């Protein structure tokens, strides 16, 4: 049961797993209970869904070389932070 409530930070960390159906039943329920009460996280979840829907149509080959380099650099910098 969902006695331990999820924080917004925890939700952000597991949102991809949630959308991919990778969470345990208990964790999924905690996730959804949090979204019910937190309008910020509900908006965030909607935004991620829309992003996946739009970005899901883009393949690696669709990216310009310049964009690939910029993205890879951004991820490298992000991991260093």
């Amino acid at each position: 049961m969902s006695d331990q409530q999820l924080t917004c930070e925890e939700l952000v960390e597991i949102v991809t797993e949630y959308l991919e159906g990778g969470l345990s039943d208990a964790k999924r329920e905690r996730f959804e209970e949090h979204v019910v009460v937190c309008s910020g996280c509900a908006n965030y979840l909607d935004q991620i869904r829309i992003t996946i829907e739009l970005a899901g149509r883009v393949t690696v080959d669709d990216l310009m070389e310049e964009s690939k380099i910029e993205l890879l650099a951004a991820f490298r910098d992000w991991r260093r932070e």
Partner: protein
Amino acid sequence: MIAWKFLAPGAIGPFSRVTWPTPTEGVPGLWLEAQVHPCASGIHACEASDLPFWLHAELWEVELEGPVVRTGRKVVAPRGRLIQRIDAWDRGAMHDFCEDCEMRVEEYAVQSDEAAAYVADLADDVEDCHAAAAGDDASRAAEAAGGGVLRNAERIAQSRFLVARLGLDGGD
């Protein structure tokens, strides 16, 4: 089995984003079907005791068919259809629910400083008419004042308020 389901405006599942077929002229909506996997798939609804955990814009009475599995705070079945919208769940009822929660939080506040911190949150919830947040804040205040026992009692009180205020039956 008759159960309850909160939906987003337009009879849309808040998590699945599925648009439910709505009843017309007293005839229930079309059946929706899904393979049952308690949280990931299946037709989800809840019993009256779990209503406070799933508050959303629209409340519907649903009929579930097939083996119904109770899991956590929901019930899951392979088939379900909307029977009728509970029109009593409107902005007035949401506001009353928030005020009911606020009233109890004021009692918890007398028992504990930590619980008293939620008084301002409840005032905001009442002003915003955010029923789900009010229910959650009240359960947190209850826990601060009296641990898990009082938190559970608070959720029971919320459920009883909804059943009485909305004139529900048959959910449990």
